[in-house]
């Protein structure tokens, strides 16, 4: 039990530059505290998130992967998030299909104005990941 309490999930968060990264900036400006488990990687648009990134993050040992972008209709690049929604749906379904816990992958829409929502998304994700424990299924074993 105590081990689970001490366990800190490692999350890779792909944030689109225009909305979710700006939203996380707003969370910062507003000093909203949230868990430090998610390391952000800013990409131009969720449409630029290749499913390979998600598989690769899990392969390298991520306990959770978050993809966050602009709300539908708000994409800076007009339709990047529409393309992302379809791709991410497919990869999510595939991961669940082979028996990866559904809570390990998450997608969210966080606008530049939603600093509080960004903090909440991370907080909820980390809360949901903790009971799952470390992700070993897709992780590359360092010594075999």
């Amino acid at each position, binding site marked *: 039990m105590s081990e689970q309490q001490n366990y800190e999930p490692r999350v890779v968060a792909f944030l689109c530059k225009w909305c979710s990264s700006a939203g996380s900036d707003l969370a910062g400006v507003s000093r909203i505290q949230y868990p430090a488990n998610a390391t952000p990687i800013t990409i131009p648009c969720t449409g630029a998130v290749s499913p390979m990134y998600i*598989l690769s993050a899990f*392969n390298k040992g991520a306990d959770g992967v978050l993809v966050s972008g602009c709300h539908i209709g708000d994409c800076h690049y007009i339709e990047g998030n529409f393309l992302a929604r379809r791709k991410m749906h497919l990869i999510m379904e595939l991961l669940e299909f082979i028996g990866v816990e559904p809570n390990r992958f998450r997608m969210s829409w966080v606008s530049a104005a939603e600093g509080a929502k960004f903090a909440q998304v991370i907080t909820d994700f980390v809360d949901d990941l903790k009971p799952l424990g470390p992700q070993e299924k897709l992780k590359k*074993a360092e010594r075999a």
Partner: protein
Amino acid sequence: MINIQDIRDTARDMLAKGEVRTVIGYRRGSRGMPAEPAFITSPEQADELIWDPTCYHNLSLYLVHDQKILAHLRKASGSPIAIVAKGCDARSIVVLLQEHYFKREDVYIIGVSCEGTGVLDERKLASQLNGVQPTLAAFDGDDYVFTTAEGEKRLPAREVMADRCLECRIPFPKEHNVVFGEDKTGRQLAEPFAALTRFEAQGTGERWDIWSHHFDRCMRCFACRSVCPMCYCDECVVDSITFPVTQQTSAAEKADRVRWIERSAMRSENITYLLTRAMHLAGRCTDCGECERACPVNIPIRMLNNKMEREAREKFGYEPGASIGGSSLVASFLDNDPGDFIR
């Protein structure tokens, strides 16, 4: 019922008139019952062509090979290639055309309907024959007839047919130049996605137990990829066994390849390979089932592709290989694509 002589006549005729440079079809193999791909280039060879339940190969792969060879030799394609294609094979050709891999006029599709049957699953047959080695297989209505050392053996096709054929919705090559056999579209020998649905009924843990077992067993011989007409990439992004290197390729480009996975056939790497393949086949796989048939260690690879196929169909209304025009599944979207999973 298809009369093989019709296919032979077509092939002979076209070769004699010089309308095609090759006819890709099936012929007797040297090792017993299974047919093998045949590349017929002269009218006299046309009689080698056969059509039987072991004609499982998706020959559209060889249209891809042909394009690669032509590109390597820097030659134009010239006269078209004729190809014998079942429903699923023809849909593969449609996807290749959709992706501009070659032009419609480069290929002459000799369509064959699977009618009430489909092709054989040798694994199912082996368990029915108990060690008896068949030397020949033939269609006969809804049955298959096998020639063995112990005489003729007749089995209802449904009992030894490949699962994908049982589940096939359109056992007919809609895209064709000439077609033989009756269009039995709508025949349904088994519920589509039946195995998938059964599998999905299990919990996350059970699903993982089964898949991790299979992922552990993959040798990464790449037969699934090599036999797949859709896996035509010159260099596979995940693990390349081919590098498209030209004189223009810089040293940096050669060095800076993303190593998504290691060459070691370890579970984690195998997963990344197989899931990437499934993702890359989403909306492109026409369920010819060749990957699963080729797999030497019996990994149910087809189920991964099936999963994507069903998602595409049910969530996005997308049917791979349905039309030559139009955008690919992942290069397009609909305003009302499901988004409930997004927070």
